[in-house]
């Protein structure tokens, strides 16, 4: 009975070996056997090296000492995990930061844009400069007149009445009058 089973298995095997696809595969494997052998040898070397490294207490101790010389503890590991968790957010922030830096850098290197902005700024500043200049001139002219006039002569009532006709004085007085009106109005509202 056992012989019969063996003969059956052998017959199946021979049948399969007659299959051209199997024959082709076997032939291909046989051709590549030297490469496989090299591969297996490399794996074997790596396993041996790992075993030796693991067993080499001197090296183990050296790296152990090296690691303990740094402040690496559970806190560090927690921090690493935390960092990893936040990496997507940090990446977004960093990306924005880099873009801002690059934008600022591009502006600094862009002479045309700098010139454009500085021209515009000077245009806005020009009227202010003119006004300041006008005021300065006014003040210095008043000072000049004060120093050149003979101020010993007293100002009488007639002179003050003459001032009242001056348009500049009228404008100032009108402002004062408007201010008094507003103050009175506020006072009435608060009563």
């Amino acid at each position, binding site marked *: 009975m056992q012989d019969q089973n063996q003969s059956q298995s052998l017959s199946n095997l021979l049948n399969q070996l007659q299959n051209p696809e199997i024959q082709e595969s076997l032939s291909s494997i046989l051709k590549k056997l030297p490469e496989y052998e090299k591969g297996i040898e490399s794996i074997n070397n790596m396993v041996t090296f790992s075993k030796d490294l693991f067993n080499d207490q001197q090296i183990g101790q050296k790296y152990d000492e090296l690691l303990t010389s740094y402040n690496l503890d559970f806190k560090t590991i927690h921090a690493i995990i935390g960092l990893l968790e936040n990496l997507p957010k940090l990446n977004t922030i960093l990306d924005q930061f880099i873009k801002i830096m*690059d934008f600022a850098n*591009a502006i600094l290197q862009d002479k045309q*844009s700098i010139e454009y*902005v500085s021209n515009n700024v000077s245009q806005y500043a020009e009227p202010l400069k003119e006004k300041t200049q006008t005021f300065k001139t006014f003040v210095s002219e008043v000072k000049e007149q004060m120093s050149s006039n003979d101020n010993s002569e007293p100002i009488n009532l007639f002179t003050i009445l003459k001032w009242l006709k001056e348009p500049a004085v009228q404008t100032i007085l009108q402002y004062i009058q408007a201010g008094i009106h507003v103050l009175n109005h506020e006072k009435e509202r608060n009563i």
Partner: protein
Amino acid sequence: MRNSYKIVIVGGGTAGISVAAQLLRKSNVLENDIAIIEPAYIHYYQPIWTLIGAGVAKKEDSGREMSSVIPKGAVWIQQSADGFKPEDHEVLLKDGTVIKYEYLVVAAGIEVLWDGIKGLKEALGTKEVCSIYSFEHITYTWDTIRNFKTGTALFTYPMTPIKCGAAPQKIMYLAEDYFYKMGIRDKIQVEFRTAESAIFDVMKYRMALEKIIERKNIDVAYHRNLIEIKAQEKIAIFENLSTNTIEEIKYDMIHVAPYMQAPRFIATSPIADANGWVDVDMYTLQHKTYKNVFGIGDNTNLPTHRSGSAVRKQVPVVVENLLSIMRDQPMNQFYDGYTACPIVTGYNKAILPEFNYQKEPVETMPFNQAIERTSLYLLKKNLLPIMYWDGMLKGTM
């Protein structure tokens, strides 16, 4: 010349340059494998053309050499595109060259039809016929405005889609403000004739602009489409789109917003929809038929206002989605139709509409942007050009 690239971008305008710059920032391996097809020598920052036409910006500030804005790592093919063979992954150039691509981005802008309105092309730049849509004639626009003393100043808006749809209004508000500052406003009748049915699509800004128009005493009529200019007689002929009748207006100066359409080489190609625009999905910006093709900017059939700010929001969507399909990953970026158009309403004020596909305001600033503000004018005049040249075109904004 090399004839095959991983990514080919048709158009070296705002969209094309920004897409190339962002792609190169995101993926170093694309260096020297992105080609930009663009025939022009000069790249223009067009949003400033309104201010040039109003005499507050210099013409030379709006243009830079194309070579200076092509991102490092992109190859500039200085040719005009002439057609597409998307089945074969090919772009055809005017000189007969064929450029092959793995992925294509179509960013060719919009075409101005100067001959669309009878008499316009011949009259433009003469006899008080001006337009800020023509770089050549922007200074003539300013000359016309500053030399205008009395009569009817007419401003038009056409029935076709146009780029920067608020520009015809902006130049009108600026001109009106100039007449006012010169003390001649009461001698001038300012008129606006538009083919649109309202002054603005979004209710919040429409209400703000209607108040401004009322304050400025501008005469506005809707559903009026300019079809002819008789420059010699200074007569503008409009079609009343509501009654299908013809109306004539005698003017003393006219500012024209010309008809515009999709570039012809796109309209006649397989990538176009029935109206000639690049047929893209309105959210992913991927072509509806050719999955390795994306469309961006003015040449697409996206149902939003065509503007540089719209492009600014479309660029990251195209870039991320393109990189996703290159990596066999699902696309995860979606464009919500965002667009913005700072509307200058005078020489030191502006409003800033920002909205999406639903015509809902989506404002960025912590204040009401429908109120005229000097800060928004300063933003438009001083900050946006810098953001454009040094941010958008460098791929950081």
